[in-house]
């Protein structure tokens, strides 16, 4: 993974030039998302796929809002397979990628 993996242009557009608002959004993102990611990973460990799908559904729009485009499709896969209760290789790989990218995004956003 090289370079910046998030893109705040959508958020900046919404903010209408208000950088304070962007900063507070980033703060909120960093406050909630690590916990949600943890929830997905733990639920996956304990084979609670319904929870995996539900939490993925919740963070999906935030991933789009923060322009973390590399895992836009993956988070959909996690949501769908989770809901269907379908544990397969695709799901496993997608979750891994989501974890990797989100953790990197947290790091980059912290140093912003």
């Amino acid at each position, binding site marked *: 993974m090289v370079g910046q993996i998030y893109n705040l242009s959508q*958020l900046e557009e*919404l903010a209408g030039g208000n950088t304070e608002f962007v900063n507070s959004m980033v703060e909120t993102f960093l406050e*909630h998302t690590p916990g949600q990611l943890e929830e997905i990973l733990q639920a996956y460990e304990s084979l609670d796929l319904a929870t995996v799908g539900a939490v993925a*559904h*919740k963070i*999906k729009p*935030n991933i789009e809002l923060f322009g973390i485009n590399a895992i836009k499709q993956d988070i959909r896969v996690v949501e769908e397979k989770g809901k269907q209760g379908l544990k397969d290789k695709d799901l496993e790989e997608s979750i891994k990628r989501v974890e990797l990218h989100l953790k990197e995004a947290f790091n980059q956003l912290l140093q912003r």
Partner: protein
Amino acid sequence: MNGFKIFIVDDNELYAKASQHHLSLNPDNEVESFSTGKDCINNLYTKPNMIFLDYSLPDMSGIEVLRKIKQSYSETPVVIVSGQEDVSTAVELLKEGAYDYIVKDENAHERMWKSTNNIRENFMLRDEIDKLREEVDHKYDFSNIKGNSLALKKVYKLIEKASQTNITVSITGETGTGKELVAKAIHYNNKNKQKRPLVAVNIAAIPRDLLESELFGHEKGAFTGASNRRIGKFEEAIGGTIFLDEIGEMDLNLQAKLLRVLQEKEVTRIGSNTPIKVNARVLVATHKTLAEEVKAGRFREDLYYRLLGLPIELPPLRDRGNDIVVLAKHFVDEFASENAMGKLHITAEAQKKLLNYDWPGNVRELKAVVELASVLCDDGKITDMDINFNSTNNGLSELMSTELTLKGYNIKIIQHFLDKYDRNVVDVAKKLDIGKSTIYRMVKNNELEI
């Protein structure tokens, strides 16, 4: 209008925050966000103008919340916002009365913004229509036809009777007696019609050649210059009332066509073969005496009987006695309040002058005269000096309305000539065939000014 109140119901704090911020960029919007369905429902009493509802909430499903909202506030538009891209869910929600369905993707905020603008515009228009409708209802209330004279009381009774049914009404009366006002009163006091259109057509004001297409409409290409289809006035008035003013001016050819429309209760646009049902109520008015027009061969007898229905004859103002004063006071008050002028008073002499005039232009003329007087008067008092008649007849009726003594008229006449001929006593004496000494004597007695 106060702020436009928007609820955002979403348990995704980040997303709600973004939406709230974005929608608040328009200072007219007052945005509140709630994270649960319960919170939203408990706050519905503050009457939001619209609600953005996330489909998957922690405490209840979107459809439950939607139903709860629609139960008590069926008018409030609810836009569903959801991460679900499932068509069947969307369809189900729309069936339950959701206004719109927005998927949380990169365009979601743009769509929320547009949706808000649409609903707000809609809301403002509806608000305006309600206000205007109220205003119109009030404007054409019976109470707005002013006067207590016996002649008018009869008219009131007829209007009331006319507005209870859909009978054709023919209104006659001199120019300026308020025929259109009566037509409006009949329409707006009819419970079945008042929310439907009142379409007024002044036959005299439309060129003969255009009248037919104006009334009945035409199809594209029906005649040279018919570049578009046009809906006629009869069609516009479907379910409501059509008011044909100055019906006496319609030419015989069109009279025949009108008769057919009234008999068949359907119109056919020019250039079309398909008749369209019209159930509009018909009111007609004319300042002519239609019976005489029939005798003179200018109005079809069959149409005359078809239109006669309930005849209402409006009395000329000069036959309405003290109504003149009542109306004058009403117009003065109205003018004063429209122009923020404070209370105006009409002196007894001025009232006498108004009462003695014969009002060829009727109420319309009275209104013009007293409005002018309101502008000319000083110290909030309208005196006889402020009342000026500009009737098209001649000045004689005005002069006579002052009811002076013969001597008084003499003074007025001689003064008029003196003013006209540069106060040249010799010339004036010659013109009026009186002695110079008569004029000098009157000047000495301060009866004349030179």
